[in-house]
């Protein structure tokens, strides 16, 4: 009796260990004709909206690739499949789930999470296990200064977000007979890794033109009032006002710039679309400049999806609840396309060979050109600058992609 009592837990334990061991390869990297990609991404919590945008982008690309014959490796066609986990918008959870994807599910090829913060948590894990990851939603510059070898990003990094506005301001100043160095810049950037990266990029360009920074405020994380900064703006009369603080920064700025009748001739901010500025504030946000990773009006073109406009149409037809296609979805789709190209170039599922193929990828897509630097970021695609003109977003810079002329100075309200 006693021996039975003692052995029973053992039996249960070993049985469950066996079950676990058997269950582990359930999602092995390549099974039959299916290649499994993994992603820990935010379906709940503060990143959930954008996390779901990204997931929809991933899913659309998988569907499209599978419908077009899948991924061809060694003369055989493979279908793509993605295993998702919800990281609850918490970086620590992203890390845990990646370990789970790698160790328990046996996934060897990763797609990124949403946000710089969660990608930052993911990067050391994939480095540790030498598992390549193509990410589409972490723009922070600091992801690409740590010497990571298995991290690849299809999007432009954060220091490029507002840098083009500086060049534009210089150009306008020179055209109107002033010197670029006369331009006075006011900046308000959130005190988080992303916005501080944006700031670093701006400062580099400001120095290049010898402009003067007259306001340089750091906005708090739970930002809901920037009237003191705007009062300062009113007092010091800059020529250019830059704001970056995710959608809360965009919404707060949108509301208070209107409310305080700030008459700066040129205003640029990040996350205009995410903050839904046009539907919230209407004409009050006309002539704001907003950087974007991608726009459906750009003349980018590639295999699979065709042009940017084609992608836009297909996305809206697939997901009926979208009125506009967020760039978060477009870049997520591009990341899956990168995986297909890497597998086909490597002609192998060996993670090292696939990694090397990733680093050599050169791709023309609806999302723009993709080519990675040795640090893993995409250096072939520029950020474009759009201006809200009568409620629509029109590309105004860089000149190569501009469809409309920039309105300057903005109509002060």
């Amino acid at each position, binding site marked *: 009796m006693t021996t039975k009592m003692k052995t029973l837990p053992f039996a249960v334990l070993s049985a469950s260990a066996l079950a676990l061991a058997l269950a582990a390869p359930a999602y092995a990297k390549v099974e039959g004709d299916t290649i499994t990609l993994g992603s820990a991404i935010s379906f709940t919590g503060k990143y959930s909206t954008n996390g779901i945008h990204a997931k929809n982008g991933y899913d659309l690309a998988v569907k499209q690739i599978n419908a077009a014959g899948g991924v061809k490796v060694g003369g055989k066609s493979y279908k793509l499949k993605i295993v998702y986990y919800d990281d609850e918008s918490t970086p620590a959870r992203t890390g845990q789930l990646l370990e789970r994807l790698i160790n328990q599910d046996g996934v060897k090829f990763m797609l990124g999470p949403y946000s710089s913060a969660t990608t930052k948590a993911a990067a050391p894990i994939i480095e540790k296990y030498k598992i390549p990851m193509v990410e589409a939603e972490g723009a922070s510059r600091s992801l690409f200064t740590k010497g990571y070898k298995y991290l690849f990003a299809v999007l432009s990094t954060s220091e490029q977000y507002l840098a083009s506005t500086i060049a534009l301001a210089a150009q306008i100043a020179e055209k109107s007979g002033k010197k670029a160095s006369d331009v006075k810049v006011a900046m308000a950037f959130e005190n988080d890794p992303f916005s501080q990266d944006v700031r670093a990029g701006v400062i580099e360009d400001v120095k290049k033109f010898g402009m003067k920074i007259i306001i340089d405020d750091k906005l708090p994380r739970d930002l*809901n009032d920037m009237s003191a900064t705007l009062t300062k703006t009113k007092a010091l009369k800059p020529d250019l006002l830059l704001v970056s603080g995710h959608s809360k920064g965009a919404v707060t700025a949108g509301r208070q710039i209107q409310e305080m009748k700030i008459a700066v001739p040129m205003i640029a901010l990040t996350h205009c679309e995410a903050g839904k500025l046009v539907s919230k504030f209407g004409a009050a946000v006309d002539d704001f400049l907003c950087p974007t990773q991608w726009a459906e009006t750009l003349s980018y073109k590639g295999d699979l999806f065709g042009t940017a406009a084609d992608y836009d149409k297909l996305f809206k037809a697939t997901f009926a609840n979208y009125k506009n296609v967020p760039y978060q979805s477009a870049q997520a789709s591009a990341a899956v396309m990168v995986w297909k190209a890497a597998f086909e170039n490597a002609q192998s599922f060996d993670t090292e060979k696939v990694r090397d193929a990733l680093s050599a990828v050169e791709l023309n897509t609806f999302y723009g050109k993709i080519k990675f630097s040795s640090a893993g970021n995409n250096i072939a695609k520029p950020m474009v600058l759009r201006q809200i003109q009568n409620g629509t977003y029109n590309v105004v810079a860089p000149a190569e992609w501009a469809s409309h002329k920039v309105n300057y100075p903005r109509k002060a309200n």
Partner: protein
Amino acid sequence: MWDNIMVLAAAPVFNVQLILDGLFIGAIFALAGYGLALVWGVMNVKNLAQGELVIMGGYFAYVMTQLGLHPLLALIPAFAIMFGFGWLVYKIIISKVIERDLFTSLLATFGLALVIQQGLNLAFGPEVQTAQSGMEIRSIFGGNVTVADIRVLSLILCAILAGLVVLFMKHSRMGQAIRATSQDPRAARVMGIDTEKVYAFTFALNAAICGAAGVLISMIWVIQPFYGVPHSIRAFVVVTAAGLGNLPGVIIAALGLGVAEQYSGFVLGAEFQQATVVMLLIFVLMWRQFQMSKNRQVVQ
């Protein structure tokens, strides 16, 4: 920092803007602060979910605008529904912890704050929202100072609401019962006051006041499910500075806090605006300690 002070000295008109903005927003802080003082004073519960109640109120205004109505109309449903919500929360949670020690009620209200945050997040998503009042924005002093009508109106509404609450506390039976209970709950019970009902009413009234404050906040600042915490902290600073049961003190502290935030944002930079709130709390506590130690010496 010196540059910014020089700006204020050279163009004093900008002081007007800072002071006005501070007073307008401070009036709303006063509402949430008064609600907290009420709950703290009567029930000895330190409500960590105060800011979340404010944000909940804000979403009433947001829903109003989604329905195509003016967000100010949300004041009435926000007040009424939040009153009911407060009553429910009291019955389900607060009544279970009110007799326990301080730590239990802190934990319970902290848990409540988390539940409200995530509930709002599920219902409305994590986006930042506003409610547009669409009211006139006036320029004075040659355009250097702007005053939005909605801010003036919200100041007036705050004053009216505070006045009504004071009248209610002074003259209604329930108000008198609340005051009696806060002085001595046991004696109040002996006199036949249903203290359980008084507590429920007090908590419900606090939720309703916060709800109204939230409606006003959503038309002046922005709201988001996770923005309650700074509002909770502000309410604590206001009550700690003013003391319990001191309505004029609450109003002065809240207005002062609003103005102090604006000045620190201007002079030290926006990154110090909320830090100022916490620094003021520390100073207030130190000053109180100092005062109390002086009193003790007098007694000796």
